[in-house]
């Protein structure tokens, strides 16, 4: 691996841009948390790297495009993966569409994207992959956004669970993220839910949970 430059820093990890034997890649490095006991820290970090890699591979195997993993180093807590070149985040795309045209036109134009996102989430949830951090920044559109080449990224909080609760929370997190980042996006989210419901036969329970979660918030009340 060649020299790497820092491109993003989050709460859990740093992202570097580098090359892996001639290919542009992203290195995601989970750093040490000094407030945690070292051995606990190491085991949590390892667990998260493993679940991320697992989710990346399992999503791809089920037909959801994710970055290709090139190398995993548990010693230095790094994942080296394909850089999705020539892409925009769904967030930026929605913003540019909303900026360039009237509200009515932008709703019409974003409709196919909403359908695609709903279908993709249905595939993930049918295979019990819960993303854990669904936001419009964690979805990329590669090359021409009109082609809807949707790439899902950042599976750092993902887990495998066949519980309507977790899937409902997943949708709730996305709903909150969309409604708070994008003004006038109610119809966009209902498009996502519609296509999710149509493509996922087991969606009834999940939607019921979503309604429940909306009432109480993401965290279950743990009284008694």
């Amino acid at each position, binding site marked *: 691996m060649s020299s790497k430059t820092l491109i993003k820093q989050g709460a859990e990890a740093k992202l570097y841009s580098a090359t892996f034997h001639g290919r542009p890649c992203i290195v995601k490095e989970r750093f040490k948390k000094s407030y945690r006991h070292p051995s606990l820290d190491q085991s949590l970090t390892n667990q998260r790297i*493993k679940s991320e890699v697992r989710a990346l591979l399992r999503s791809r*195997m089920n037909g959801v495009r994710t970055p290709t*993993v090139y*190398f*995993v180093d548990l010693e230095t807590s790094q994942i080296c993966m394909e850089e999705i070149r020539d892409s925009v985040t769904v967030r930026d795309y929605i913003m540019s569409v909303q900026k360039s045209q009237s509200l009515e036109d932008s709703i019409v134009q974003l409709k196919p994207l909403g359908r695609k996102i709903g279908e993709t989430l249905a595939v993930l949830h049918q295979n019990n992959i819960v993303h854990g951090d669904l936001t419009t920044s964690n979805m990329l559109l590669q090359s021409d956004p009109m082609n809807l080449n949707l790439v899902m990224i950042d599976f750092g909080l993902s887990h495998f669970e066949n519980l309507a609760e977790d899937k409902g929370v997943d949708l709730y997190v996305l709903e909150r993220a969309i409604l708070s980042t994008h003004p006038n996006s109610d119809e966009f989210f209902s498009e996502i839910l519609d296509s999710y419901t149509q493509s996922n036969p087991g969606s009834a329970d999940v939607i019921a949970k979503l309604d429940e979660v909306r009432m109480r918030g993401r965290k279950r009340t743990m009284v008694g």
Partner: protein
Amino acid sequence: MKGLFEATLLKTSLILDPFQVIVAVNKAVHQQKINKMMTKTVHSEILFSLSPRKNISNAFKTFGMGDKDTSVFVAILNDHDKSTMSVIQNLIKGRQVDPYQVSELTNLQSIKEVYNLSETELSVSNTLDAVVSRIASKDIVQV
């Protein structure tokens, strides 16, 4: 085995692109560095890394050059003075071609079988990415 040289001889029909070998070598060298090799030498570790499964002898049989093969993909490590390379060039009676021409010798059907690639996956990913993903995440996910 006379121990004339140290290298990995790979079955060309299961190699799609030199990058597939690079990813496996990268992993083998890393395992050697941290003393966590599953096999005895770094060259056999390359064979093992290429395989999506954890059975060592099976990996050797599947990915190693076979007795009846008429082509071979050779991976050599640390050969800065090209000494191993010249030994091998003298031993092999054949025509040397560019590593990227390995794609002409690939058997896509057996690659799909060995790496368990489904049409669903290949609809969103090219074959090389699918193979590389499996090699890189083998310790973590079994397919």
